[in-house]
């Protein structure tokens, strides 16, 4: 228990200064590192043929985001499809099938990292070490860029002082934001984490797989092939960038990805470090530190509750064996090295942050732990993915402001800008979208069990399908395993879900921010709603919970809740 509190405190303590550093990065403040970073950035701008001084409206910013993703997607697909003829393939790995390549390409450009292939065995070093790692750097930076643009829009854009009411606002330059994010945030942090992990024993090499003699030569297997590679670099950015796609198929449960207790602590902190820092960065960018603390409080309350419930759940005996008088915590699918608590902590944080890396099997969590994991993904704004998590959070804030505004008798406004029919219509589409995608596809998939390939019948079967789609929609990428997901149906439906879950929840808020930015600003008055109060914080938490409970409770009842009841009923029966 002590180490869990310590991990959380260290994460927050590191996130606060990181947040203010990031504020400087995205507001273009002078920094002592400029001499080092600026030349690198200039080279990148020239290579990409972009003008870093160009200002963008929400439209051009959004288009740049979508176009850059399209180009990256095509390149990623081609590299994966033709990896067998490309260099850096010492183990002569063959091409991916078209649907897996498609799913993988989309999965990585969207920061989802859902893997329908077995990591090291199906990807060449070029695919893993260059393509995947590059996307793992670029995709969180893109999400962060959109978040920064939305935040700029919330205070009227960079040209707020000079622009007239109704004039399009400058939300920054997309390419500059992405490049600065990669160069000044993700690369330096990854370097530090990669070095720490390499020190702890995570492989870091360009040599091919190691062939070794097993110690027990009597067994049927006398030699073993151990795939290695530039693992520590990838693990670092996989954790920091809420990516989650590991080098090895078993992710951070693999002793080569996560060899020691200390490496587990480092990797756990890396999951939440940037997502928490984004909250403080936001406070700096909109020049409302108190708003950042209110947001931090709301997220922290939810995060601690969800995490505590998960830890409690995994400290109980395995639900399936309750009748068999099982003792001790639920250790099924967990590394003995980490135990139930560190596994539960990781499981809770990785789903809250849309990271999706694992150090234990989510499929084997007790029902309550599984419920918490999927709740984290459905809310998708308790820290959330880098950038996109805070964008989702802002959407909840807008909804809470609308409701609260009515309740205090003023046309709802945030930072002096009114939320009117147009914005509410866009927000409403974001309310319907998750239910439409996740419930709709789950219903279709369970209606045709022949294509879903469930390993489990009943409640757990529904849970698996629901989890897979929720994970895809939330761009989380973790899986509940046990689902035969490498089929054309799963590849295509999950890809479709990932696309909807990535682009609409980023572009629609950008649009709302762009529309609100050019509105008339009402100066704050005592009759207006103050967001930085405990009352609003509680209202916000209530809105987040009620919206998700209303949308997804019935599906949870015939999922993990039903499963828990069934298991306890068995226990009572015995």
């Amino acid at each position: 228990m002590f180490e869990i509190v310590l991990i959380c405190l260290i994460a927050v303590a590191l996130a606060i200064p990181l947040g203010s550093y990031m504020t400087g990065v995205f507001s273009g403040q002078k920094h002592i590192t400029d001499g080092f970073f600026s030349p690198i950035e200039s080279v990148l701008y020239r290579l990409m043929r972009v003008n870093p001084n160009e200002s963008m409206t929400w439209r051009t910013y959004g288009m740049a985001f979508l176009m850059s993703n399209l180009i990256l997607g095509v390149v990623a697909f081609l590299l994966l499809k033709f990896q067998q003829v490309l260099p850096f393939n010492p183990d002569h790995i063959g091409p991916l099938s078209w649907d897996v390549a498609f799913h993988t390409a989309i999965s990585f450009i969207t920061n989802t990292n859902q893997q329908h292939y077995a990591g090291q065995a199906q990807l060449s070093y070029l695919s893993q070490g260059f393509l995947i790692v590059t996307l793992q750097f670029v995709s969180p930076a893109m999400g962060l860029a959109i978040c920064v643009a939305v935040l700029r829009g919330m205070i009227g854009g960079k040209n707020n002082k000079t622009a007239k009411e109704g004039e399009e606002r400058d939300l920054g330059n997309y390419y500059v934001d992405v490049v600065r994010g990669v160069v000044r945030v993700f690369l330096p942090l990854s370097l530090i984490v990669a070095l720490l992990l390499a020190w702890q024993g995570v492989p870091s090499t360009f040599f091919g797989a190691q062939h070794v003699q097993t110690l027990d030569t009597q067994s049927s297997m006398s030699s073993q092939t151990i795939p290695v590679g530039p693992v520590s670099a990838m693990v670092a950015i996989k954790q920091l960038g809420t990516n989650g796609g590991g080098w090895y198929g078993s992710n951070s449960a693999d002793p080569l990805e996560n060899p020691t207790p200390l490496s587990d602590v480092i990797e756990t902190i890396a999951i939440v470090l940037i997502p928490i820092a984004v909250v403080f960065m936001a406070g700096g960018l909109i020049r409302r530190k108190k708003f950042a603390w209110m947001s931090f409080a709301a997220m922290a309350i939810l995060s601690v509750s969800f995490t505590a419930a998960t830890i409690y759940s995994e400290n109980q005996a395995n639900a399936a064996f309750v009748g068999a008088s099982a003792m001790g915590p639920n250790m099924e699918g967990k590394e003995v090295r980490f135990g139930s608590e560190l596994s539960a902590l990781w499981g809770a944080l990785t789903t809250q942050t849309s990271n999706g890396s694992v150090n234990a099997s989510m499929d084997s969590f007790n029902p309550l732990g599984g419920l918490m994991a999927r709740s984290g993904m459905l809310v998708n704004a308790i820290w959330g993915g880098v950038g996109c998590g805070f964008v989702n959070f802002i959407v909840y804030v807008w909804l809470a402001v609308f409701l609260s505004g009515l309740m205090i008798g003023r046309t709802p406004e945030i930072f002096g800008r009114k939320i009117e029919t147009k914005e509410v219509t866009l927000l409403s589409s974001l309310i319907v979208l998750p239910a439409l995608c996740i419930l709709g596809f789950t219903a279709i998939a369970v209606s045709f069990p022949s294509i879903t390939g469930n390993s489990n019948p009943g409640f757990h079967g529904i849970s698996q399908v629901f989890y897979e789609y929720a994970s895809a929609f939330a761009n989380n990428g973790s899986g509940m395993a046990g689902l035969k997901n490498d089929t054309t149906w799963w590849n295509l439906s999950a890809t479709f879900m990932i696309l909807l879950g990535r682009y609409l929840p980023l572009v629609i808020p950008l649009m709302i921010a762009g529309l609100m930015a050019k509105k008339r600003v009402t100066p704050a008055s005592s009759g207006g709603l103050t967001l930085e109060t405990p009352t609003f914080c509680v209202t916000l938490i209530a809105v987040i919970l009620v919206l998700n409970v209303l949308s997804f409770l019935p599906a949870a009842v015939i999922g993990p809740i039903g499963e828990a009841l069934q298991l306890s009923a068995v226990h009572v029966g015995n």
Partner: protein
Amino acid sequence: MKNQTVQTMTMSELRQASVDSLKKLSLLKMASSPVMFIVWVGTLLSAAITLYQAVQDKPYAMALITTIILFLTVWFSNLAESVAEAKSRGQASSLRSAKQSLKACRIKGESESWVAAADLIKGDRVKVRAGEYIPADGDIIVGVATVNESAVTGESAAVLRESGTDHSSVIGGTKLLSGEVVLEVANDPGNSFLDRMIGLVEGAQRQKTPNETALTVLLSSLSAVFLLIVMTLPAMANFMGARLDDTMLIALLVCLIPTTIGGLLPAIGIAGMNRALKANVVAKSGKAVEVAGDIDTLLLDKTGTITFGDRQATEFLVSKDADSIEMIKAAVWSSLDDPTPEGKSVVLLAENKGIDKPEAPADAEFIPFSPKTRISGVQLVDGSLMMKGASDSMKTWARDHQLSWPDDMDGLVRKVAKQGGTPLVVASNTAVLGVIALSDVVKPGVAERFAQLRALGVRTVMVTGDNPVTAGVIAAQAGVDDFIAEAKPEDKLALIREEQAKGRLVAMVGDGTNDAPALAQADIGLAMNSGTQAAKEAGNMVDLDSDPAKLLSVVEIGKQLLITRGALTTFSLANDVAKYFVILPAIFVTAIPTIGTLNVMHLHSPQSAVIAALIFNALIIPALIPLALKGVKVRAITAEKLLRNNMLVYGLGGVLLPFISIKILDVIISSFF
């Protein structure tokens, strides 16, 4: 307008409302409220299921009960709207009744002819004589008259209306008491303020206000989510080998979609307009009432709004050389024939100090005030003089009459001026006696109202032509947040523009023709009914009582409108949490018995649970009609406290109430099974 007559509904009105609510059941009309449309479609589906099961000889009681309750839900919601409309109509028609079957004497060139008032068009000239009813809204262009406007305003005291002044407009249906006037009709038939107001509250012409539209969109999206849940649930249950009952699914859907707020939304909007009308404010659009809740800055004329129209004597300051009785007597004598309110107030103040008003001797010679001399007074037969006037004029007069100027005199004059008053020096033919302080008197209760407005976040700015010193004193007394002194009429317009450029929403009150541009520019322009037609046309609200402080009520009505919607939305959504606990176990328990454990409320049976939930869902609508019509109480507390209170009452209360109510209903229902 008599509030009592419309407060309580007569039986016949209620019957009328019930009939109206049935007329609203047509699918076309229902489509304007997506939430209730879904319930209505659910009712029809459920009726079809009932019929099908009856034909198939299957048990159909559950389906039938569901159909009936769903129908009642829709009907209750329509009833809420009809009741609100009926109330407004009652309110409006009591205003309109006076106008009907009036005759008008129309002047065309030289000829005069009698026509029905309804045939008058804009620009017609009409002659009205003493004792006749004024046939239409209009402006007096010739003549002066006293008018009894009690039919419209409820105020029986006669008011003076005169051509060429700021008080030239008259309202149709009011009675001319004396005089004879010619007036120009201001509107085409059916276009008067009252006609417009009536149109606003009647369903057909009622347009949704911006916030109402936004809320409707949000509620529709939530309904869409619940529709998706109900559509996908059978597939998931099917995977478990369970088949869900169609009637139960319809019941689940209806319980989940926000029927409470969806059903009451139109009634809330109409009731808001109705409250405005009840306060004797005629708004030209529903939007105007809603915007009133957002007002940041309130611009008020000092004179007539904050203070009584005229300056009044408030103090006698006696020179150290003079006797106070002598001084007050001189002041009274000099004011005996002074017809101005200032003069009258001097006499009144003296009476308050125990000095009775003397009878004016017939042979006294009064010296009237003239702009040239700027003094006035009286000369008695014995030749003694009693004069009062501005201090510099009196100084000259004293010098002319070889009177010494007491050395404390300048101090007294300065003292009065410093307090924002106007000093009038009083003298007799023997000595300069003292100073009368004339001051503006702030209306009672004004400061409290401004404090309330401030608590609601509204800044008050006073506009006056006075010098800054005087203005400052009054501003401090009245408790306004800011004031503009030495303001010219065009300064108001500039000030409104300036405030709006800072992003503030501005309300202003005005009555004169020179106020018209400012009234039009302001986000809320409240024109006084006593004012000119131009002012009334320019503003977006008219106060029939001509009480500028009415703006506070309008702001409250606007806020109340939004708060009522917000509170009931929160309530409606909070209800769903409890309803889930009732219906989810009920819907699954037959197919998947383990889920029955979730029946934490220990409801009798799945059927009784669902019926109890549906009945609660239906009854909560009529139960909340009074709240919807009256509006949530607005108190002058900070926004955070307001939010906290509403979250506790409607949020937390909304979660708890259905748990208790449904349990009670279930106990009652189960006693029948």
